[in-house]
């Protein structure tokens, strides 16, 4: 069962127009090494912009490279390219959180990051953990690296290695991740996540970004190509216009990465959002976030690449009713479209505010969304005509083996959060709201988490790398 908003013809048209944009308008590419690589491969120079011949783009698209991620515990495997369902994960890089204790916002601290990671580690539905909170009590110059380091120490799941904005950060992120795997070669063989790099929209690759792409591609680690255009501000206002522009950004990125290393595993990820046309701010209250995610998933599949999109999103500043319906709508589209990685768990306010309560509630939302992602199996056994016959002759559905066995296989959804008791029963039991349930669950999950998952020696090695980075950064 798949929701596919674009027809084959429409995908072809999007691809053709993308190639035309890359050929006629091209992209701003800075950094002498990147320019040299692209020019010698046949790109043409037009001032700061480079024009990409369609043939070059098509050639680079022809390399098929499978992407598979492994948990910090290597027995957990996420085959992104061969995924048969969507994988879900939390938001990234937020420095303000909604404190469940007093419902006020405050700056995130290291302990908050550790708690968020441990909650994500314990919940069943986050398949991957992204370094989520940016703690303000760490030395600012190494905050990005520390986020990854402390995330890796507190979950057995796959971990996004980090979002990097320059070559320096990439090199240290790789060292930290390699320490966890016991060496770079092991890391490349079994990466626990990708390196994420965002070009600027529209079609702009500054020197720091191209250097980061080159460094990452050389390492052989998987890269998340992450354009984040905003319709009406940094991309055409139409959904399809935004889709085509980000596609051009993806393909320009892909060409550079594949020219550096033709075996670079790539994830086609996009955060295409709409703008509030009165404030100029990105809108979280926008059903097109989910819908464009569905289109991005289809485009990625068209190129044989795994996809990453935003799912759960909201404009609301509280884990409230508004957040609930906006997340459900935005989460449903991309999962039904077969997106590989779907983000957003635990974020409010268009991704600017973190909430542990929301993270726990999101686990329930994704459980519901994923419940029928694969549709239903229609066969004689599942239909169970003989069960109807048996009951009609004087039996009870509850007493059928068919009922018990399919119930065990998850045929009827069983939630873990929220209420379904009749009003009086709910009132007598203390009128517990879902946020209170979530707070209770947070306490339980944190109390039962086994703590740091890495050996002490690995943790010390990571601390050493962080210290080295802190000193190194001052001279950089």
């Amino acid at each position, binding site marked *: 069962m798949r929701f596919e908003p674009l027809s084959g013809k429409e995908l072809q048209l999007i691809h053709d127009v993308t190639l035309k944009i890359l050929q006629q308008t091209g992209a701003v590419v800075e950094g002498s090494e990147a320019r040299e690589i692209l020019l010698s491969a046949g790109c043409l120079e037009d001032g700061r912009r480079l024009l990409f011949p369609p043939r070059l783009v098509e050639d680079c698209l022809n390399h098929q490279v499978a992407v598979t991620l492994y948990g910090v515990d290597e027995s957990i495997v996420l085959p992104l390219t061969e995924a048969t369902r969507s994988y879900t994960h939390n938001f990234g*890089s*937020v420095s303000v959180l909604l404190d469940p204790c007093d419902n006020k916002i405050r*700056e995130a601290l290291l302990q908050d990051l550790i708690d968020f990671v441990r909650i994500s580690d314990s919940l069943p539905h986050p398949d991957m953990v992204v370094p989520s909170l940016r703690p303000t009590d760490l030395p600012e110059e190494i905050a990005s690296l520390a986020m990854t380091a402390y995330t890796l120490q507190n979950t057995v799941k796959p971990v996004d290695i980090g979002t990097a*904005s320059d070559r320096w950060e990439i090199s240290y992120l790789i060292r930290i991740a390699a320490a966890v795997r016991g060496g770079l070669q092991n890391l490349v063989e079994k990466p626990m996540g990708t390196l994420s790099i965002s070009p*600027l929209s529209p079609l702009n690759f500054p020197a720091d970004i191209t250097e980061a792409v080159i460094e990452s591609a050389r390492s052989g680690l998987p890269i998340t190509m992450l354009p984040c255009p905003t319709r*009406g501000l940094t991309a055409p206002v139409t959904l399809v216009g935004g889709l085509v522009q980000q596609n051009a950004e993806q393909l320009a990125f892909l060409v550079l990465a594949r020219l550096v290393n033709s075996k670079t595993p790539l994830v086609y990820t996009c955060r295409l959002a709409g703008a509030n*046309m009165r*404030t*100029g*701010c990105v809108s979280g209250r926008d059903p097109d976030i989910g819908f464009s995610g569905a289109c991005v998933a289809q485009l990625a599949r068209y190129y044989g690449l795994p996809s990453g999109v935003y799912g759960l999103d909201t404009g609301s500043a509280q884990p409230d009713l508004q957040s609930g319906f906006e997340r459900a709508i935005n989460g449903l589209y991309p999962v039904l479209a077969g997106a590989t990685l779907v983000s957003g768990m635990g974020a409010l306010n268009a991704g600017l505010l973190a909430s542990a309560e929301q993270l726990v509630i999101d686990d329930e939302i994704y459980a519901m969304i994923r419940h029928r992602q694969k549709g239903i199996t229609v066969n004689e056994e599942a239909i169970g005509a003989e069960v109807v016959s048996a009951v009609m002759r004087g039996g009870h559905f509850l007493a059928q083996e068919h009922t018990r066995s399919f119930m065990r296989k998850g045929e009827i959804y069983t939630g873990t959060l929220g209420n379904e008791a009749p009003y009086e029963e709910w009132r007598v039991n203390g009128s517990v709201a879902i946020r209170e349930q979530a707070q209770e669950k947070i306490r339980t999950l944190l109390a039962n988490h086994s703590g740091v998952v890495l050996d002490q020696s690995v943790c010390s090695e990571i601390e050493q790398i962080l210290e080295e980075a802190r000193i190194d950064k001052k001279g950089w």
Partner: protein
Amino acid sequence: MTAILQNLAAAILGGSKGAALEWAERGLQSGVKPLELINGGLTVGLDEVGRKFECGEYYLPDMMLAAEAMSAVLEKLAPRLDQDRNDTAQAVKVVIGTVKGDLHSIGKDIVIMMLKAAGMEIFDLGVDVSSADFVCSVEENNADILGISALMTTTIQEQKKIIDLLADKGLREKVKVIVGGAPLSEEWALKIGADAYAADAIAGVKKIKALLNLA
């Protein structure tokens, strides 16, 4: 003359650069003074744009197109403005830019467009601006307002550096500092010693006016 001015105002209101330039040209040919075109046409149109924006009828693209039409006419009129123009009143001076390491310009550009429409003089330093360049421009231009934009959680620290440097150079009391950018908060602005924080461009313009007691 009244018809020409009305048509010029309407062209600004509709955000039509072509029509605005045409009515300005007609005005000049019929002997209307440039200053009359500005005061009786452009400003009237722009005031109406502001009113429509305030009441929710106009959106950012309406504002942007009106501002562009106005800029085109002003550019055309500039060489013909009399030397003895009477607008000797000093315009408010605003130095604005995006911090070092941050290449995001769109939010800053929207603020600039709205401040220009409010008649302020803008010194746009662009993006990836060092703290030294911010402070230098404040000093050189004797700015009333310094606007500092940062869009990434990784770059907002730069805002503090700039404010600290202003203090080091003894300039902190001479200029009001307003900070903006998606990851920011009122608390952050307070912590780094800014005078104001704005969540979006509309709030930004209001807060700048409030800082200067113009509201």
